[in-house]
């Protein structure tokens, strides 16, 4: 029997190559035209502890890595004990061990799942291949063979991965992979129903949220990145360190986050689309200079891949606890925009909006991702990267007259921007309050006018950037980012028209899970809908107000303790939402959201 949607967990010691095995399985699946969603947890310490990868595979697009395991791959006993409680009733176990000598009854007495396959991965690696460390490749071979994946994709991918690390590594690892497959072919009798379906197609891309943000920036015309390494955001700078120089751009590793944002502002001022990416601690350090972008009107994109806070917090875990600091952090008042991508695809797409808004409105734009999204992987159609990138990445020189004023007071609040090198455009920008020509000013009327001018930019922010993602019905159809005003109006109007029992509101990465919970609730007869604003700040009242009014109960789902977005909503509307909060560092599971929906539904 072919299975159209199943979840696999892989666990082992941090040194056993679990993450790599998981990565390769996702790539094999993507080449086999299956969709995946995967997530990983690894110990915060560099060595020691258990690593874990969870991969959900299926025929249709998948929006979260699932909850119950249909397959558990354990590289050791400890891994088995840790993850056996999450197994589905007929789930299978693939575990390292000696099938000849193992005492099945005593070892797996507490197993609640289906068939167990004991495969001597370590022994095959040590004896047949002669390289102990190739154990994970033996595992990869065994698992892909058991599930019915064709052999060639895996072999090619193993080859490609190790070739980059050194030719000498290729041979033993490919041998390990083959040995694992061979062992299954010769010695294992399949006793389960899990076989992957045969699907035709050109295969999919596999991207993490961080990959998608980096590529999204590249396609959006970003040609300058500066940053300081920090978990879980570093992959963005690492990818751009490779890709930016290929297109004439620059990746600059600064000495700290203050230098990062300062350099990005300098480059942006000079006329290049510029960004930085960081996590909570870095955002805190950047807050003074965010205000400089606000008052001196320097376009700026800052990505915050949130992690558990405060202070050093939980560096390798996820949280949505920087919302208020993104919206209000820093001293003084200045216009800014906060966007939160809801999926890996949206990580790519949000960057185009972020750069457009930053450049047109000359404001700082903060993009809130999180560890659970940055390190999650998903399959996406190849068409995503076939779309035409923004090509005109810099503005040609322009001449300005002798009466040019950089901060001219205009109806839209947007002033003409000369850039260094432009004839006749010389001017001063400053973080002091200033006259329209840039000179420092203490004048009261000017101050009042300037503050209003800057905030007018938000009032005139194009509605198309304020689209929402809305989910309703058994398939929880999604509304994607609108590209025109009308489309945004239509999408928001659809969400506005939602009426029903339970309305779920969330932001960012929880969308994938909420979407599934909504679909499951609907199947159980609970009238449910959900919306996720893509642009959180400025607030999208036009869509959110009718949504709140149109539902008997609203649940605000957030990965934080204090309910930051719930508080924002309570500030705009006189109501008391139900809250579902989680702050243990792990993303929500669909079951958890579903339970809350059911609980609230039983009281209305």
């Amino acid at each position, binding site marked *: 029997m072919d299975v159209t949607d199943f979840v696999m967990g892989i666990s082992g010691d941090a040194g056993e190559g679990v993450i790599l095995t998981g990565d390769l399985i996702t790539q094999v699946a993507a080449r086999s035209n299956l969709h995946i969603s995967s997530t990983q947890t690894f110990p915060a310490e560099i060595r020691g502890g258990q690593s874990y990868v969870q991969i959900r595979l299926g025929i249709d697009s998948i929006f979260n890595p699932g909850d119950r395991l249909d397959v558990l791959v354990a590289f050791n006993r400890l891994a088995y004990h840790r993850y056996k409680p999450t197994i589905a009733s007929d789930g299978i176990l693939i575990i390292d061990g000696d099938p000849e000598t193992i005492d099945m009854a005593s070892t797996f007495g507490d197993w609640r799942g289906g068939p167990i396959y004991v495969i001597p991965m370590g022994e095959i690696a040590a004896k047949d291949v002669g390289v102990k460390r190739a154990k994970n490749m033996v595992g990869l071979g065994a698992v892909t063979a058991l599930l019915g994946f064709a052999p060639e994709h895996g072999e090619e991918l193993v080859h490609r991965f190790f070739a980059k690390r050194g030719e000498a590594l290729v041979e033993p690892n490919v041998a390990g992979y083959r040995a694992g497959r061979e062992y299954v072919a010769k010695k294992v009798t399949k006793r389960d129903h899990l076989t992957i379906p045969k699907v035709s197609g050109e295969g999919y891309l596999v991207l993490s949220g961080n990959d998608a943000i980096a590529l999204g920036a590249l396609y959006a015309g970003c*040609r*300058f990145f*500066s940053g300081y390494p920090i978990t879980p955001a570093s992959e963005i700078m690492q990818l751009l360190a490779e890709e930016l120089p290929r297109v004439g751009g620059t990746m600059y590793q600064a000495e700290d986050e203050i230098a990062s944002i*300062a350099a990005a502002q300098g480059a942006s001022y000079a006329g290049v689309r510029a960004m930085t990416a960081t996590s909570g601690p870095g955002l805190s350090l950047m807050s003074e200079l965010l205000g400089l972008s606000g008052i001196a009107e320097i376009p700026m994109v800052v990505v915050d891949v949130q992690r558990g806070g405060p202070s050093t917090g939980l560096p390798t875990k996820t949280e949505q606890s920087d919302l208020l600091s993104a919206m209000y952090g820093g001293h003084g008042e200045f216009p800014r925009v906060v966007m939160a991508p809801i999926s890996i695809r949206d990580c790519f797409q949000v960057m185009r909006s972020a750069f457009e808004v930053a450049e047109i409105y000359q404001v700082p734009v903060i993009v809130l991702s999180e560890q659970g999204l940055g390190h999650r992987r998903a399959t996406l159609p190849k068409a995503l990267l076939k779309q035409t990138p923004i090509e005109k990445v810099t503005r040609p020189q322009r001449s300005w007259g002798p009466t040019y004023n950089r901060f001219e007071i205009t109806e839209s609040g947007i002033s003409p921007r000369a850039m260094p*090198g432009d004839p006749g455009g010389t001017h001063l920008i400053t973080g002091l309050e200033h006259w329209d020509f840039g000179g420092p000013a203490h004048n009261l009327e000017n101050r009042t006018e300037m503050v209003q001018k800057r905030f007018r930019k938000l009032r005139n922010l194009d509605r198309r950037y304020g689209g929402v993602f809305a989910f309703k019905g058994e398939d929880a159809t999604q509304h994607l980012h609108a590209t025109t005003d009308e489309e945004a109006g239509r999408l928001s109007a659809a969400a506005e028209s939602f009426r029903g029992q339970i309305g779920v509101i969330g932001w960012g990465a929880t969308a994938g899970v909420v979407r599934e919970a909504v679909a499951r609730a609907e199947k159980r007869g609970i009238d449910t809908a959900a919306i996720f604003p893509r642009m959180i700040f400025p607030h999208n009242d036009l869509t959110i107000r009718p949504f709140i009014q149109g539902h008997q109960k609203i649940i605000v789902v957030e990965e934080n303790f204090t309910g930051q977005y719930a508080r924002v909503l309570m500030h705009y509307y006189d109501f008391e939402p139900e809250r579902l909060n989680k702050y243990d560092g792990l993303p929500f599971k669909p079951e958890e959201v579903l339970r809350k929906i059911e609980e609230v539904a039983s009281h209305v």
Partner: protein
Amino acid sequence: MSNAPEAAPTKDDAAAAAPSQPCGRGRDLNQYKGRLKPIWCTGCGIFGVLNALMRSLCELDIDPENLAVVSGIGCSSRLPGFVKCYGYHGAHGRALPTAIGVKLGNPRLTVIAAGGDGDGLSIGIGHFPHAARRNLDLTYILIDNRIYGLTKGQTSPTTVEGYETKTSPTGVIEPPLNPVELAIVYGATFVARGYSAKVKDLQNLIMEAIRHKGFSFVQVISPCVTFGKGSGFDYFGPRIKPMPEDHDAGDRHAALHLVSDTDTLLAGIFYRQDRPEYVARLQARGGARGRELDASDPKIDTESLITRFS
């Protein structure tokens, strides 16, 4: 038209109003006057720095529109407003990383960073070694008055031991930093010291610094006449001495030896070195085209990205 009531002159007015001061190759010093008039206290040393800088720019024939002057916060950091240029008066201590961003954003610009001793050696000192060792082609003018001027007279990292300030009422108890020594040790490839009362000498140093291909550092001793009691021009005048004629600026040890004498303040070029410049090295690897990128430049290789991620 500007919204500034007290007739903020337009750029042309500013130049037209002043008597002509020919300089450089048929230029006029007034071409380098910014739209603002300096607000420094009468007699402040920074006037000398501004004067020397404008003359250097004029002599070197640098177009104001291809010039960026970046600063932090402080009396000295007000400088960009008084020079006709693309001026960037940013955040306290952040002149260097900002200037680096500007240079990378448009490598064709002449980029000058300027600021005080508090700005550059206290809050911003974390950026100094990195700017120096990277060796981007920009000039950093540290205007050293040994005090916090803008905030009205607190101890700075270059205030000397025993000196009384508002925050060290019984005298400073820690030794000061030595900016020239630091610059050499950090890897700056051009290191000089000037004095704001000797404008002509200072101009020569600044011109050399701007001509230098790499990170050039000029410490300018520049008295604060309002809060630097006892360390004004009278104090510095006799202590400033010309660089010994036989000093070999290519000799790092000799330079470090000379700068270790803190009683006499030698003015001149301490050290210079030829070392590959940062932006040029990035460009040799294909990057750092900055604003010169246009439609004819390298396109994203979408096919290779697709292969990489599948």
